[in-house]
């Protein structure tokens, strides 16, 4: 296996370094924007330029396999525009003699720190630039932060060919997936609930569909993702491990454009365009097909069965967004996101004589976000964003059984209904300010208020037997909480070689008459003695007031978000990071090494044998508080331009946990304690029409609890007189490490005049990885001349999932 892994890595590294950053462009009097789109796709570069700069400029050019710099010179030879390549960005501006100010585009977020001299820039296809991570990593103060574009997400092949934000992040160094194929992630040894997912700056609680196979973000309408895993801007807090802000596209101002995608598992449609001169809209809809696919299958199954099976499942995401420019100084926006999963299943039995039996299970869960905001520029140096938002996570689980039997003239009937609901409602109000007093400093500050309302699982039962009705409802109540937070952050270029980003985030969390608070200082320092290289260090503290209770590795509607209550304290994490960054002069290559040490306090987890405590007890009774630590080092090499782009990363890590009431209070390795992790992503732009993508991941196996011994069970009369015979002996938690995990995913994109096909192969070499181990039985049959002997022998078994899975989809662009 080692030889195979090594060979694979070497091949991918070779491919990665093989291609140069050349472009092929043919255009006759074409709009400059259209030409840049082509260049952007070939090189992966972002083009930043003031609004209106390219209006009316047409280009005639014919270049084949030409270096980027030469191509740009050729394109701009007859214009008054000059360019500068800075990292992954190509900054365009008018030549000095014709410079003019244009304030048309008011940025809700500041322009990139590196382009302080060009404060009003825009990127192709977008009205405004909002990411604070546009600049090359070597020039910023942040450590472990990255902007990931929608194209980068789409270029990473994933299961079922469904481009997925979270699975793209799983390829980042220091990030581990939870269970294979699932969307959960562990960042630098954190728990799955330690990541704050935001959609346009508003938290999303339910980020998964279908148990975690898909994330809730529709990549067709995503512009980019800001991802912070080490140094975290003071603006963000509330989770321990990482912060991910998914930003949606703004509406297209040039006309009504969009795309429609049809895949094996889902379809998507999105459209955007102008509404008058000042307003744009964007609508995106994604929906799965499982319910449609299941119709013929069920028809076949049910045609031969007396008992009819009912199965109906879908997931859906709907995004709608409107932007309106009130003036040169004010932009408003309003958006809605609704994502849900619906599962309806059950059976109908009717013997056409005297008996009818009906079972119904209706599960519905999801997230609703509605927000409105205003971006306002007070003057050239001060701008602000005001946001009001409502986010609702909901789960509704219903089970209804009906049984009727007719006997000798009388009818006996019985009904039972069980409802379980679980929801969170947050009202959010916040103001974020951005002040640039001079070219060297940028101060961001703001404050917010969140009104939380938590309803943990509440269950009611109604039973009707004949004339007897029994109703029960548990006493779970809604918990209200008030959260107030404020932050201030200064990004200061002290000298041309030294830059510091320091900040403070303070928060109060009031629940049940108790006030809990947190102070989160942040500081990161960057020293780059030469332009291509920087050394960085950071300290980050984060505080978390809510945590997710989940009994499985899947993302299920039974998962509950619980506020910190009772005697438990807010979870906190302190993290120290240091790193070195390098970027080549032409921005084509970058490399980094980041070391981190993280201490987590007041972590919460289920205590040993928590399942013996009945649900009517407060959830606190099932939990135990403890601590954790994570340390490691991440190496990464990226190729950013050229026909072949990609990244190779290696992480060395160690993660542990210690809880008072788990594992006898002894420290144990966390499930995601991956000593070695290697990720390789290669994107080969074969031609204008064809792109090949490959992603290989390999890591030390998950830690797992293997129960090797058994003991003789007592024969007490118990549940329905069932005697298990034996029971597993307790052991050290996560005492067994699963085998090395590795997988190669491939995809190919083929363009035609109307759109593109995407072909995918998940787990291309069909290595079914071990996700668990268990005690099972091996049934054997021995045939002798006289007897047939059946035996069932206890054996340890590896549980393997996910073989090679092909996928195909077509996207039509208009």
């Amino acid at each position, binding site marked *: 296996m080692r030889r195979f892994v090594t060979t694979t890595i070497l091949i991918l590294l070779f491919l990665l370094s093989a291609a140069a950053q050349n472009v092929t462009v043919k255009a006759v009097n074409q709009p400059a924007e259209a030409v840049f789109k082509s260049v952007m796709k070939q090189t992966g570069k972002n083009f930043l330029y003031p609004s209106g700069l390219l209006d009316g400029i047409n280009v005639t050019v014919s270049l084949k396999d030409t270096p980027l710099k030469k191509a740009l010179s050729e394109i701009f030879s007859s214009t008054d525009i000059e360019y500068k390549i800075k990292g992954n960005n190509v900054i365009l501006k008018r030549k000095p003699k014709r410079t003019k100010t244009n304030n048309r585009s008011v940025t809700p977020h500041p322009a990139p720190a590196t382009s302080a001299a060009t404060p009003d820039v825009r990127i192709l296809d977008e009205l405004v630039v909002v990411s604070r991570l546009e600049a090359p990593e070597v020039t910023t103060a942040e450590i472990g932060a990255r902007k990931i574009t929608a194209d980068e997400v789409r270029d990473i092949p994933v299961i079922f060919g469904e481009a997925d934000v979270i699975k793209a992040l799983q390829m980042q160094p220091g990030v581990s997936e939870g269970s294979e*194929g699932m969307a959960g992630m562990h960042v630098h040894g954190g728990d799955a609930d330690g990541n704050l997912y935001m959609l346009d700056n508003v938290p999303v609680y339910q980020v998964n569909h279908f*148990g975690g196979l898909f994330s809730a973000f529709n990549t067709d309408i995503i512009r980019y993702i800001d991802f912070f895993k080490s140094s975290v801007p003071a603006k963000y807090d509330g989770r321990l491990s990482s912060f991910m802000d998914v930003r949606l596209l703004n509406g297209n101002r040039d006309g009504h454009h969009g795309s429609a995608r049809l895949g094996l598992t889902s379809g998507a449609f999105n459209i955007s365009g102008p509404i008058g001169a000042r307003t744009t809209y964007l609508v995106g809809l994604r929906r799965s097909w499982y319910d449609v696919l299941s119709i013929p299958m069920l028809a076949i199954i049910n045609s031969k069965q007396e008992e009819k*099976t009912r*199965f109906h499942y879908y997931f859906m995401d709907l995004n709608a967004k409107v932007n309106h420019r009130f003036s040169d100084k004010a932009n408003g926006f309003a958006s809605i996101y609704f994502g849900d999963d619906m599962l309806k*299943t*059950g059976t109908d039995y009717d013997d056409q004589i005297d008996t009818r039996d009906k*079972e119904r*299970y209706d*599960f519905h869960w999801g997230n609703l976000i509605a927000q409105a905001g205003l971006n306002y520029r007070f003057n050239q140096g001060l701008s602000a964003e005001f946001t009001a938002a409502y986010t609702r996570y909901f789960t509704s689980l219903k*089970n209804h059984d009906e049984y009727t039997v007719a006997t000798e003239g009388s009818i006996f009937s019985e009904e039972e209904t*069980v409802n379980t609901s*679980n929801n969170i409602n947050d009202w959010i109000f916040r103001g974020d300010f951005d002040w640039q007093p001079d070219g060297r400093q940028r101060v961001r500050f703001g404050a917010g208020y969140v009104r939380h309302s938590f309803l943990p699982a509440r*269950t009611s*039962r109604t*039973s009707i*037997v004949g004339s*007897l009705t029994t109703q029960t409802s548990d006493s779970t109540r809604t918990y209200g909480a008030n959260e107030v937070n404020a932050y201030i952050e200064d990004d200061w270029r002290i000298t041309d070689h030294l830059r510091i980003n320091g900040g403070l985030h303070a928060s109060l969390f009031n629940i049940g008459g108790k006030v809990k608070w947190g102070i989160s200082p942040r500081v990161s320092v960057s020293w780059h003695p030469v332009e291509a290289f920087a050394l960085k260090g950071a300290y980050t503290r984060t505080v978390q007031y809510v945590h997710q209770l989940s*009994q499985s590795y899947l993302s299920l509607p*039974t998962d*509950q978000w619980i506020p910190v209550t009772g005697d438990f304290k807010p979870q906190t994490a302190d993290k120290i990071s240091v790193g070195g960054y390098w970027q080549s002069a032409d921005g084509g290559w970058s490399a980094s090494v980041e070391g981190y040490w993280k201490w987590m306090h007041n972590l919460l987890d289920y205590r040993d*044998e928590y*399942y*013996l405590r*009945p*649900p*009517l*007890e407060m959830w606190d009774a099932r939990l135990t508080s403890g601590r954790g630590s994570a340390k490691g080092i991440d190496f990464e090499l990226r190729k950013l331009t050229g026909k072949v782009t990609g990244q190779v990363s290696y992480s060395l890590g160690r993660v542990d946990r210690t809880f008072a009431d788990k594992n006898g209070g002894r420290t144990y390795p966390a499930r995601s304690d991956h000593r070695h992790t290697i990720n390789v992503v290669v994107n080969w732009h074969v031609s204008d029409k064809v792109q090949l993508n490959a992603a290989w991941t390999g890591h030390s196996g998950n830690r797992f*609890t*293997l*129960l*090797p*011994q*058994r*003991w003789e*069970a*007592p024969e*007490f009369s*118990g*549940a*329905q*007189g069932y005697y*298990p015979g*034996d*029971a*597993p*002996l*307790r052991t050290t938690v996560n005492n*067994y490490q699963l085998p090395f995990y590795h997988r190669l995913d491939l995809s190919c994109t083929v363009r035609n005049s109307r759109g593109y096909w995407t072909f995918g192969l998940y787990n291309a070499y069909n290595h079914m990885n071990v*996700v*668990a181990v268990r005690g*099972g039985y091996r049934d054997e049959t021995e045939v002798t001349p006289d007897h047939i002997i059946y035996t069932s*022998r*206890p*054996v*340890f078994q*590896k*549980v*393997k999932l*996910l*073989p090679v899975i092909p996928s195909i989809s077509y996207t039509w662009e208009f």
Partner: protein
Amino acid sequence: MGILRFTCLPLLLLLLTGCYEDFTPDIETKPVLCLNSLITEGEPIKVSVTRTWLYTDTESATTRHVDDAEVTVYVNGAIVGDDYLPQQGDNIRIVAESRAYGRAEGEVTVPEAVPAESVEWDADVTHIWKHDTPGILNYILNFNLHATLTIKDPAGTDNYYLFSRESFPEDRGSYPVENIRFYPGVFRDDLEPIFSEHIGVFESITGDGSYGFTFFTDRQFQGSRYTLNLQFENLEYDVRNEEYSEDLFDCGLILNLSSVSSSYYNWCSYQWQVENGTLSDLTDVGLSDPFWGYSNVSTGAGVIAARSSSSHVINLKDFLQRELARE
């Protein structure tokens, strides 16, 4: 557990196309002593001493018994002999030592029996069949019975209970050639909500009932009264005799209410989770953390439990005589 267990979970697993591969883990194990004992008020103590074994050890059935173990029983701190009979409130500690497998110990306090403060019942006849053969008393009577049993929970302690029922005369399951047969019907444990208090969210949404689990705790009525609603359906009384005799109607139900130790309750809760809980399904396919058997023995193997019982008899004689007299 309903359709979810049989359709959705397998569907998900089918989608994931899982498979199993046998293997031998490289993990060290050391056998330890296992103690099991159910201590009942007024009955001699029996202790089973065995050892743990590797899961794949198919010979363990013949080798798990430990012959060299020395067992000592302490009651309220003092060693007692074989003639000791447990009493309510006694704290009993059992210690076993073996040269080969070391030491194991566990303790339990015999709980106080909690007799029912009151038991009330009524019954509805659903069907009566009468044979017309002259000179032979031959009836079949079907009825439902509803009983309420009120208990007063002792204050200051966490208490655990087990409800069970018996009938008399014993149901032999065959049609009576003569004399009587009494079938005690179906006990609807799902209609008494307190028998469902152990059911979690997972099982709630899949519509699972208590599946015969009739343990409950005093968490919802600590130190106060609680009335159990007990519904029995389709009870059947058959009589076929040549002579009328009052003894023919001598049948009924015995309602047992046992106070059990927390270890007894926890062990049976664990059993229920293994057999009926959704968690065990997820564990089987590696989608949840595995869980081990509950134990209150120092080695983690075995259960030392105790119980004290009280009973109340529902004699149906008058009811049956009255109903048959109407025919």
